[in-house]
């Protein structure tokens, strides 16, 4: 959403906007634990940056460039893995061809996350 008074202001700079009620802070399970795959994404962010492949600014740049549509439609850790992957490719950790091949191999292993991540 372009701010007509300040066109340089990007979508993620949402402080001060109007918005609806704070979601789910009283919902049962609000304080839920994260799924294993989400915790792994978090770990990959820490490890990828600790090894010098990207910085938190690199993570943020890709998240912000993904745009508002991604913010609305993807979950938090979905956006994060997309950004981590982009940063790792840019940092030379592996190539897009490596990724395509590996993703095909992973999805051929089974229908659920448990099946597909078995042995890893």
């Amino acid at each position, binding site marked *: 959403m372009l701010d007509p008074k300040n066109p340089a202001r990007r979508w993620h700079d949402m402080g*001060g*906007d109007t918005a609806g009620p704070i979601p*789910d*802070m009283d919902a049962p399970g609000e304080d839920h634990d994260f799924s294993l795959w989400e915790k792994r994404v978090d*770990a990959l962010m820490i*490890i*990828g940056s600790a090894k010098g492949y990207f910085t938190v600014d690199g993570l943020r740049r890709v998240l912000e460039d993904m745009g508002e549509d991604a913010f609305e439609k993807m979950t938090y850790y979905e956006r994060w893995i997309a950004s981590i*992957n982009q940063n790792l490719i840019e940092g030379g950790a592996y190539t897009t061809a490596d990724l395509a091949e590996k*993703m095909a191999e992973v999805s051929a292993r089974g229908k659920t*996350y448990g099946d597909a991540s078995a042995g890893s």
Partner: protein
Amino acid sequence: MPHDHHDHDHLSPSGHPYRADDDTDLSYWQTMEIAVRELLVEKGITTPAEVADQIETMDARTPSNGAKVVARAWSDPEYHAALMKDASAATREMGFDIGPLKLIAVENTDDTHNMIVCTLCSCYPRNLLGLPPDWYKSRAYRSRTVREPRSVLAEFGVTLPENTTVRVHDSTADMRYIVIPKRPQGTENMSEDELAALVTRDSMIGTGVAKTP
């Protein structure tokens, strides 16, 4: 019984209730996570043990870390002074290392109530509170907290006197805040452990207050 589902009241290692079983169909982004992790292992960049250790480290970070810091600051004037001067160093000394980030402690008093937010993303004092709750990362909290903090507080059930100053602190990638809630009355003779039990996660974000004994 391995398939007994009466365990939903139990807490996970990170102090949260367990989520429902996660056995939905494999998604595109889950596939990507597995692929990225395995590629990093194959390229010699990380190891499965390093990933597991990192998850364990993060799971061990819970709001009880922050509660220990607050209880000590309430009980020990010297520690209180050190925390207010340099919160990164004072929390590192207790084993809660924030790394290269700058941490600032902001203290609630009779006159002032502090709240933290990250309007740009989801920056949070992870060393003291663990991973942020979903609402902290929501559009509503990020947008409204700097505009109408009192109505946000009201949604959390916190109503402050009209003459209380409300200060909202916007976190950044490099600078995080922790709220030191006001010490409740009637706690003068309590031990640090007893005090820590009164300090809730939300009281350290500023969307709550400490429990009264």
